[in-house]
């Protein structure tokens, strides 16, 4: 007979090891999946996890790593703060899209004027766009008690349709020969978010992601506000006695995560992606949720988890190219990772006893 005994405190040791166990378990389960698809599992795992870093063309892929990890880390840092407080913003994908539309909108409105102030203005517009979009669920929750989970998620679909409308309508490139999609911001020097150091993939979004990691670390672990946020999540009643106002917390958490997601969208549209198209969003807003959990909602963990998740994206692309592994396989892989992580988390909060309940 196996019984579970709740630990008085979550185990620190297991809290660090479960993500690693989960990654290994996912590799094994993923290998089985790849074998079921008729691919060599060892080759597939090597292509995804090893070749982008140390394989023959690693030089190119290492740069891509930061390009993919940047938005994931930036979004996940913000989400983790809210998740700690028990505020579930799962509409980061929508805030990311709106940030991109607002930021690109500023650039397209003044095209072709050149100014050193343009890019900073775009950054501000992108952040505000994401913030405003996240304020919708925040205000509806505070004013009417509507679930922020459902509203933020619904708004993803609204944002997606708005994006398509922009790409086919108001933002369509007048010199684009009728093709949908905006002007390419990569060819607009003042608006372009360039690679800062050639070959590294480092752009302003990656810088922002690192700043977000440092900022949220200071906020959550070195500042009284972070302590209040964590108490609000773990013991809402105690938090209220300690003077935490739930409504303000909702606005702060959704605002922060929305602004960071909006920034991520802006840096993407001005940099690696270059233009507003109806297929501009690549699911970073959803994958960032996995990153936040895989990183144990801790800034440093998120940094590592973001890099790992970026690796699976690049490795997935490679496996698609070289092993004809379907693109969706990597999505399954990421979903499984979250399953294993949540499942193994049992070990952090509970002790397993064999042979009946303790005396």
């Amino acid at each position, binding site marked *: 007979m196996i019984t*579970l005994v*709740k630990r008085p405190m979550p185990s620190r040791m297991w809290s660090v090891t479960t993500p690693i166990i989960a990654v290994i378990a996912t590799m094994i389960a993923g290998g089985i999946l790849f074998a079921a*698809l008729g691919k060599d599992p060892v080759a597939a795992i090597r292509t995804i996890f090893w070749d982008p870093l140390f394989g023959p063309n690693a030089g190119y892929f290492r740069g891509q790593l930061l390009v993919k990890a940047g938005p994931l880390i930036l979004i996940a840092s913000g989400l983790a703060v809210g998740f700690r407080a028990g505020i*579930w913003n*799962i509409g980061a994908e929508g805030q990311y899209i709106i940030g991109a539309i607002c930021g690109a909108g500023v650039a397209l409105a003044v095209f072709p004027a050149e100014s050193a102030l343009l890019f900073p203005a775009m950054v501000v517009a992108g952040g505000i766009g994401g913030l405003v979009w996240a304020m919708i669920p925040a205000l*509806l929750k505070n004013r*009417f*008690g*509507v*679930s922020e*989970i*459902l*509203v933020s*998620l*619904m*708004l*993803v*679909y*609204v944002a997606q*349709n*708005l994006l*398509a*409308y922009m790409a*086919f*309508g108001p933002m369509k490139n007048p010199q684009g020969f009728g093709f949908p999609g905006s002007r390419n911001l990569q060819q607009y020097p003042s608006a372009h978010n360039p690679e800062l150091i050639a070959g590294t993939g480092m752009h302003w979004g990656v810088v922002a992601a690192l700043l977000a990691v440092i900022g949220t670390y200071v906020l959550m672990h070195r500042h009284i506000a972070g302590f209040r946020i964590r108490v609000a999540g773990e013991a809402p009643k105690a938090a209220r006695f300690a003077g935490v106002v739930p409504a303000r917390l909702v606005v702060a958490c959704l605002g922060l995560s929305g602004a960071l997601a909006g920034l991520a969208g802006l840096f993407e549209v001005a940099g690696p992606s270059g233009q507003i198209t109806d297929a501009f969003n690549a699911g970073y807003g*959803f994958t960032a*949720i*996995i990153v936040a*959990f895989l990183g144990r909602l801790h800034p440093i963990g998120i940094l590592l988890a973001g890099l790992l998740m970026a690796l699976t994206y690049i490795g997935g692309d490679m496996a698609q190219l070289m092993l004809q592994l*379907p*693109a*969706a*396989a*990597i*999505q*399954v*892989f*990421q*979903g*499984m990772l*979250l*399953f294993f992580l*949540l*499942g193994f*988390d*049992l070990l952090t*909060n*509970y002790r397993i006893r064999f042979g009946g*309940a303790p005396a």
Partner: protein
Amino acid sequence: MILGGIDIVVLIATLMAASTPVLLAATGELVAEKAGVLNLGVEGMMIMGAVGGFAAAVATGSPVLGFLGGALAGAAMALIFAFLTQVLLSNQVATGLALTLFGLGLSALIGKGFEGVRPPPTPKLPFGPLAEIPVAGRILFSHDWMVYASLALVAATWWFLRHSRAGLILRAVGENHDAAHALGYRVVAVRVTALAFGGALAGLGGAYLSLVRVPQWTEGMTAGAGWIALAIVVFASWRPERVLLGAYLFGGITAIQLQMQAAGYKIPVHLLTMAPYVVTIVALVLITALHRRGAQAAPAALGRSFHAST
């Protein structure tokens, strides 16, 4: 009867078919939430039902077996969720999200070979002369059997929750799992069963999308229907008869915007497609604002893990 270029009778008839997927999924989720489990993976279960049902129907040539396959696929997904949240006591919100992300990926993987394939047709029920009645015949007697089955399922769910002993136990588990446990009811078993039922209905809803509504398999074809089903449960204040109302309201919006697209209104198509999601948000706000008891209407133990300490 034509109003602003839209035939009202056709509109109501399409509304019933358009609502069926969310109606099924919302009814299933209602039962799971009544047992105290918040499963945010409806979208993932629905899309697995869509691909599973499609695959089963194409392989066997029988739409009935297709629907069965869809229900099984949805239930299998729900059991993954049940294992994680009920046995391994994982966070329900996070696990539900994982289920959705996993389902979207896995369905795309399975569905690769089915793109562009046509499923065997699901025939409309032959009502004979009844279908010839003007207006009422077109609205009431022009559907396939799943539309009527979904209505019967709502009625059965209403009866089960309201009038059966098992339904009472299920509600007790959802309101206060510690008390139910103390009375000797098996909390985890009740919840796992409720989840499996919810998953099966979500799968049926998904299969209805791919086998009847569209009818085709395309990646990500549920397009948020699962999330709308979740919203409808809240909108309905956890009551089956109101789920029916909510689903038909949502189906009505979908049907109107489709008819408006067809009638050639000068509104960009993307703004029309946005309408159901905006309306869902507005409906959620209105219902919670109207009777400030939305929170009390929710089962008291909703979303909380159960761990028998003794």
